């Protein structure tokens, strides 16, 4: 649990950091902001598939 929180926190900071820096330099366009959002959202895994795979693995080893 703790590991998940820490990894997620670091992941989010790493994901938004380029956008923050681009904003600070006044260079992030709408298109770049949208692409940054899409890049992060696209990386979110399908949780139902993830759960099904985990359940199948548990049933197999049981």
């Amino acid at each position, binding site marked *: 649990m703790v590991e998940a929180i820490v990894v997620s926190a670091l992941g989010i900071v790493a994901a938004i950091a380029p956008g923050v820096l681009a904003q600070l330099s006044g260079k992030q366009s709408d298109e770049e902001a949208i692409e940054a959002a*899409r890049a992060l959202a696209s990386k979110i895994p399908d949780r139902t598939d993830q759960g099904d795979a985990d359940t199948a693995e548990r*049933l197999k080893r049981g």
Partner: protein
Amino acid sequence: MDDDKSSAIDTWASWASAIMIALSIALIVWCSGCANPIGDQARAATVSAGALTAGGDVIMAARAASLDRVEAQYPADPEHDAQVEIESARWRPVLEALDAARTGLLAWIDSLDLARMAGGGDDLLAPIAVVAARAVQLVVRAFDLAASLGVEDLPAIPPVVRQLADGFAGR
């Protein structure tokens, strides 16, 4: 000794989460002054996607821990398989809610991109506000559902993100 170490790690994790949320809020508050509706919404979507990623990881870890306990309690078949399936089914609505929230977020982002390509007029932003509000609500509902199963330490949706969605919904 182990308890001390675990406590230190918990404290560090709490600080890391707090810093993450503070950074997100600072980013949104700062960008809210830019008077750039499409850019503001895109950054709000980025923070929402980050919260959904982090929350999803926490939920999957809690689900795994719960199933581990079930397997420890029922190590042998036929109880093992039956109990694993029951516990998996208990968590399935939460996972489906997370997937629905992700779909909502991607729809929001796609709508923003279309509005940008079409010139980004107010007549385009008004309907997107509804999509934005719905996407944020789906994230909140997924987290609420997980909390009802006892999941703790879910990331907070920054209030400014909610306000952005609500504010745009009012246009």
